C-alpha cells in the first residue's frame, strides 16, 4: 500500500514537469494514476470481501512510534475505492474544465497530492500517520481553493478554510496524543480493541478534541462556514473535495473511532445535536441561495450533518444507513457539482434565475443532472432511495431519540427533494420561452464523468447486491465489529411506514419547490441574521484579533529603550527579591552592625570620593566634566583594587580608564552641542526603578559575602603556580596558563571590537546604504 501512496506523491510532484513536457496532454498520466490505483485497490477486494484485512507496516520514525502502518479493511477499502474512482473521473473532468489554463501542471500537482493524502488517510493504521495525511489534505485543499490566486476572495476563502481546518487539526493532534496516552498505543487496530477507554479519565478531553477536529473538517455547525466560501475553487475541486472526499474525512474518522469513543452519552448527544443542527441549518440556507454551487454546498453541509447524526445514533442500522447514504450522496453530489461546472463553463453563469431550459443544448449534461437529481430526491430505482429508506428506518428505530433524528432526516430530505427538482429539472427541462444562451457546448470531458457517476447511482440502486452490498457490508462490519451483521440492501421493502414517509418527503419537497421563488425574495431580509453568523464572526474575530494584537504590541514594543530596560530591570529585581523571600537565606545583620569596625580611614576617604563623584555626575551638565569625573570614579575603584591586593587589576583599570577618557576626548569635539534633556514626566518612576535595582544588588552582595566559602581553586593555584607553571604572579599565571582560554576569548573580543569600530567609522551610509 505504501507504493500507492508513494506513486501518488511522486506523480504529483512530477506533474509540473510533465506539463512542461506534454503540454495539455499532461492529463493522460494524471488520469491513469488514480485509475491504476483503483485497479490496484480492486485487487484487494477478494481478500477484504472474504472478511480479512490487509496490514502493512514500514518503519518511519520509530523512536516516536510513528510508523507508516497501513490497514485495509472494509471501511478503508470502501473509502479508498471511492477516492480513487472519483479521482479518475475528476482528473478527466479537470482537463475539460481547465483546458488551457497556464497553471494546469500545478493544478494537477495539488489535486493528485490531495488525492494521495486522502488515500493515505483512510488506509492509515497509525493515528499519527493518519494525522500527517489529515494535515496534508488541509494544505493541499488550501492550495486548491486558492488556485485562482489573483482573486482576492479566492485567497481569503482558501485562508479561511486552512485556518478553520488547521485549527481543528491542532485540536485533533491534541486529542490523538491523549488517545495514544490513554491506550498506550498509536496503532488504530490495537486501540480499537480496547473497550475500556470510555471510563478512562482522558476520555472526555480526548473526545472533545477529536470531535473538534472532525467537525471542522466535515463542516459541522458552527464551523461550516468555510465550505460555501470554498466554492471559490475551480469546480473540479468542489466536486472532488467538497462533496466526495475531504469533507468525508471527518466522517471517516468518526466512523472509524466510533467503536472506541462511541457509546457514551456525550458522544451520542453531541453528535446528534451538532449533526442535527448542521443538517437543518444547511438545508434551510440552501433554500435561500441562488448560486448553483452555493446551493449544492449548503446541501452538502446538510448531508454531512445527516451523516454525523447517524453516527451519533450509533446503532448498527444507523451506521449501515450512514454508509449507504454516504455513497449515494457522493455519487449524486459529485455529479451535480460537475454539472454545475459544465453549465458554468458553457454559459458563464451559475445563477439559477438566469438558467432555463438548457436541456436541448447540452443533452448529455442534462441527462446526468436528471439522473443525479432523481437519486438526490430519493426516487425509487436509485441508490438515493435506498439510502433514505435506511435513514428513516434507523431514525425510527431508537425510541429515545426518535423525534429528533426523524425531524432532521425529514427536513433535510424534503429540502433535498426540492433542490433536486430545481437542479435536475428546472435548469434543463423547464419550458421557458427564452432558454439561456449557451456560448459553447460542453466537451466530452465535461459531460462524460458526470454521466458515468449518475448512471452509477442508478446501477447501484437497481442491483445493490451486485457491488454495493458486499463492500458496504464489510465496511459496516469494520465499524460495528459485528461479523454476523448482514446488510441487506433491497430496493423494495413493501408498503411500510418508511415508504410512506419517503413519499411524504417528496411531496413536501415539491411543495417547497413551488414556493422557492418566494423564498428567494425573502432571502435579502434575512441578511441581518447573517451578521451574527459564524462567517461574520470569523471575519470580525480576525479583524479584532489583529487590531488588538497590534495595539498590544504597539504598547509593549513601543520603541523606547528606557521602557524596555525598566521592564527588564523590574523583572529581574522582582524575581531576585521573590527568590530571596522564598529561600530565606540567613543574613546576620548583627555582623554588619558595626559598619565601621575595621575600616581604615583612607578607605572611607576613597569611598566618599566615589560617592561624591557619583553625586556630582548626576548633577553636572557639562560633558567634559562628566567624563573627567567618571574617570575619577574609575580611578578610585582602581585604588580599591590596589588596597586589596590586586595590583594587576588596578593597573589595568587605570589604563583602561585613561583610554576611555582619551576615546571620549577624541570624539567629543565631533559631537553636537550638549543639550539638556530631562526625564520628562517619568522622572520618579525611573528613580524608583534605579533605587530598586541598586538595593537589590546591595542586598545580594551582602548575602553573598556572608556565605562565601573558601575556594579550592585558590589553594590549587597557590600550590601549582610556581612549581608547575613557573610563574610567581599567580594572577598572570592564571591569565596566560591556567585559564588561558579566557584570555584568548578576551583578546578576540577586543579584536572584533576594533574591527567593528573601524567599520562603523569608515563605512558611511552614503557609501554603503544598500541592504
Amino acid at each position, binding site marked *: 500500500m505504501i507504493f500507492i501512496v508513494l506513486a501518488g506523491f511522486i506523480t504529483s510532484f512530477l506533474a509540473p514537469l510533465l506539463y512542461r513536457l506534454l503540454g495539455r496532454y499532461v492529463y493522460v498520466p494524471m488520469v491513469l494514476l488514480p485509475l491504476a490505483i483503483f485497479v490496484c485497490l480492486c485487487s484487494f477486494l477478494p481478500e477484504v470481501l472474504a472478511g480479512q484485512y490487509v496490514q502493512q507496516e514500514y518503519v518511519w520514525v520509530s523512536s516516536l512510534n510513528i510508523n507508516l502502518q497501513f490497514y485495509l479493511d472494509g471501511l478503508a477499502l470502501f473509502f479508498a475505492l471511492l477516492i480513487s474512482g472519483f479521482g479518475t473521473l475528476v482528473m478527466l473532468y479537470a482537463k475539460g474544465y481547465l483546458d488551457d489554463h497556464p497553471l494546469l501542471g500545478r493544478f494537477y500537482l495539488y489535486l493528485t497530492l490531495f488525492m494521495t493524502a486522502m488515500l493515505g488517510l483512510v488506509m492509515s493504521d497509525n493515528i499519527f500517520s493518519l494525522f500527517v495525511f489529515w494535515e496534508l489534505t488541509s494544505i493541499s485543499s488550501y492550495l486548491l481553493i486558492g488556485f485562482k490566486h489573483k482573486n482576492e476572495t479566492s485567497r481569503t476563502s482558501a485562508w479561511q478554510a486552512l485556518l478553520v481546518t488547521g485549527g481543528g487539526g491542532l485540536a485533533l493532534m491534541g486529542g490523538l496524543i491523549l488517545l495514544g496516552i490513554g491506550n498506550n498505543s498509536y496503532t488504530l487496530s490495537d486501540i480499537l480493541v480496547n473497550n475500556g477507554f470510555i471510563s478512562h479519565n482522558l476520555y472526555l478531553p480526548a473526545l472533545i478534541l477529536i470531535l473538534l477536529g472532525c467537525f471542522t473538517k466535515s463542516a459541522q455547525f458552527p464551523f461550516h462556514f468555510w465550505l460555501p466560501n470554498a466554492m471559490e475553487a475551480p469546480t473540479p475541486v468542489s466536486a472532488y473535495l467538497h462533496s466526495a472526499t475531504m469533507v468525508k474525512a471527518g466522517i471517516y474518522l468518526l466512523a472509524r473511532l466510533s467503536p472506541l469513543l462511541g457509546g457514551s452519552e456525550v458522544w451520542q448527544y453531541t453528535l446528534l445535536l451538532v449533526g442535527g443542527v448542521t443538517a437543518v441549518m444547511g438545508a434551510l440556507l440552501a433554500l435561500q441561495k441562488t448560486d448553483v454551487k452555493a446551493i449544492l454546498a449548503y446541501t452538502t453541509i446538510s448531508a454531512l450533518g445527516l451523516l454525523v447524526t447517524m453516527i451519533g445514533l450509533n446503532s448498527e442500522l444507523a451506521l449501515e444507513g450512514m454508509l449507504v447514504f454516504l455513497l449515494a450522496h457522493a455519487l449524486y453530489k459529485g455529479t451535480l457539482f460537475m454539472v454545475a461546472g459544465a453549465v458554468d463553463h458553457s454559459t458563464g453563469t451559475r445563477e439559477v434565475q438566469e438558467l432555463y431550459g438548457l436541456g436541448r443544448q447540452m443533452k448529455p449534461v442534462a441527462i446526468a443532472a436528471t439522473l443525479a437529481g432523481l437519486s438526490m430526491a430519493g426516487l425509487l430505482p436509485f441508490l438515493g432511495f435506498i439510502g433514505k429508506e435506511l435513514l428513516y428506518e434507523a431514525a425510527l428505530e431508537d425510541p429515545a431519540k426518535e423525534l429528533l433524528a426523524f425531524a432532521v432526516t425529514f427536513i433535510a430530505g424534503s429540502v433535498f427533494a426540492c433542490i433536486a427538482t430545481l437542479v435536475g429539472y428546472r435548469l434543463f427541462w423547464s419550458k421557458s420561452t427564452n432558454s439561456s444562451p449557451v456560448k459553447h457546448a460542453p466537451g466530452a470531458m465535461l459531460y462524460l464523468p458526470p454521466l458515468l457517476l449518475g448512471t452509477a447511482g442508478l446501477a447501484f440502486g437497481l442491483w445493490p447486491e451486485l457491488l454495493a452490498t458486499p463492500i458496504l457490508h464489510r465496511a459496516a462490519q469494520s465499524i460495528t465489529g459485528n461479523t454476523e451483521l448482514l446488510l441487506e440492501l433491497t430496493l423494495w421493502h413493501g408498503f411500510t411506514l418508511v415508504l410512506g414517509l419517503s413519499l411524504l418527503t417528496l411531496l413536501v419537497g415539491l411543495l417547497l419547490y413551488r414556493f422557492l421563488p418566494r423564498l428567494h425574495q425573502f432571502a435579502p431580509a434575512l441578511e441581518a441574521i447573517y451578521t451574527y453568523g459564524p462567517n461574520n464572526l470569523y471575519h470580525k474575530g480576525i479583524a479584532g484579533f489583529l487590531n488588538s494584537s497590534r495595539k498590544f504590541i504597539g504598547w509593549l514594543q513601543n520603541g523606547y529603550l528606557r521602557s524596555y530596560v525598566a521592564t527588564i530591570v523590574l523583572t529581574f529585581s522582582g524575581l531576585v527579591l521573590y527568590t530571596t523571600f522564598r529561600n530565606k537565606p540567613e543574613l546576620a545583620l548583627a555582623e554588619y552592625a558595626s559598619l565601621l569596625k575595621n575600616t581604615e580611614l583612607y578607605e572611607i576617604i576613597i569611598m566618599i570620593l566615589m560617592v561624591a563623584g557619583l553625586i556630582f555626575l548626576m548633577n553636572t551638565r557639562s560633558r567634559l566634566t562628566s567624563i573627567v569625573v567618571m574617570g575619577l570614579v574609575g580611578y578610585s575603584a582602581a585604588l580599591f583594587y590596589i588596597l586589596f591586593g590586586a595590583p594587576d587589576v588596578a*593597573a589595568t583599570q587605570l589604563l583602561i580608564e585613561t*583610554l576611555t577618557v582619551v576615546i571620549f576626548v577624541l570624539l567629543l569635539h565631533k559631537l553636537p552641542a550638549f543639550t539638556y534633556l530631562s526625564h520628562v514626566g517619568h522622572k520618579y518612576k525611573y528613580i524608583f526603578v534605579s533605587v530598586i535595582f541598586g538595593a537589590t544588588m546591595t542586598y545580594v552582595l551582602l548575602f553573598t559575602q556572608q556565605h562565601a566559602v573558601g575556594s579550592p581553586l585558590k589553594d590549587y593555584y597557590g600550590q601549582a603556580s610556581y612549581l608547575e607553571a*613557573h610563574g610567581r604572579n599567580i594572577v598572570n599565571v592564571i*591569565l596566560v596558563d591556567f585559564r588561558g*582560554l579566557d584570555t584568548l576569548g578576551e583578546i578576540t573580543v577586543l579584536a572584533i571590537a576594533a574591527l567593528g569600530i573601524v567599520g562603523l567609522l569608515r563605512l558611511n551610509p552614503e557609501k554603503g546604504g544598500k541592504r
Partner: protein
Amino acid sequence: MKTIILSTAIRLLTPLFQVFSIYILLRGHNHPGGGFIGGLIGAIAFVFDTLANGHESTEKTFFTLKVYQQPRKSGISYLQHYLQFIRMNIQRKKEAGQLDVQQQYCIQLRPVYLMALGLFIATISGTISLLLQQPFMTSQWPEFHIPVLGSPGTPLLFDLGVYLLVMGIILKIVFTLAKE
C-alpha cells in the same frame, strides 16, 4: 595641546615608554604586569603622541619604514645585489644622496597587521601543544634559559601575542578615531 615642548617631549619619551612596556611584559609572569598591561602602556604612549602630534606624524615616525630600491645591475650576482640593497637601506641617511636611488617606497606597519600577528602568536602558542598530542595550551618549557627571561615557555609567547594584539587594537581604534 600642541605646544612644541610638549609634543617634542612626548615624541622623545615614546620610545622610552616602549622599552618600559616591554619590560612590563617580560616581568609579568613573576611580578605585576604582563602582556595586557604592557601592551596598554605601549599603546598609550603612542596615543599620547597622537594627541600631541596628530596621527599622521605618529604613523609616519613609528610605523613607516622607508625602503630604497635599485634595479639589479648587470654583472652583479643576486647575493651581491641583496647585500647592496640591505647596506643601502641601513646607511640610507648618509648615502641617500650619493646612491642613484631609483625607487623609494614605504612599508607601513598597519595596526591590523599587528592585531593579526598578535592573535596568531597567541593562538599558535596554544596550538603547539596540540601538535604534540597534548591538550590545547599545555605549556611547553624549553630547557635553555635566556638571561632576562628565564625559560621562554609558551605562556610567555602567549603573553607576547596578547601584547601585540592589544597594542594593535588600541592603535587601530585611536588612529581611526583621530582620522575622523
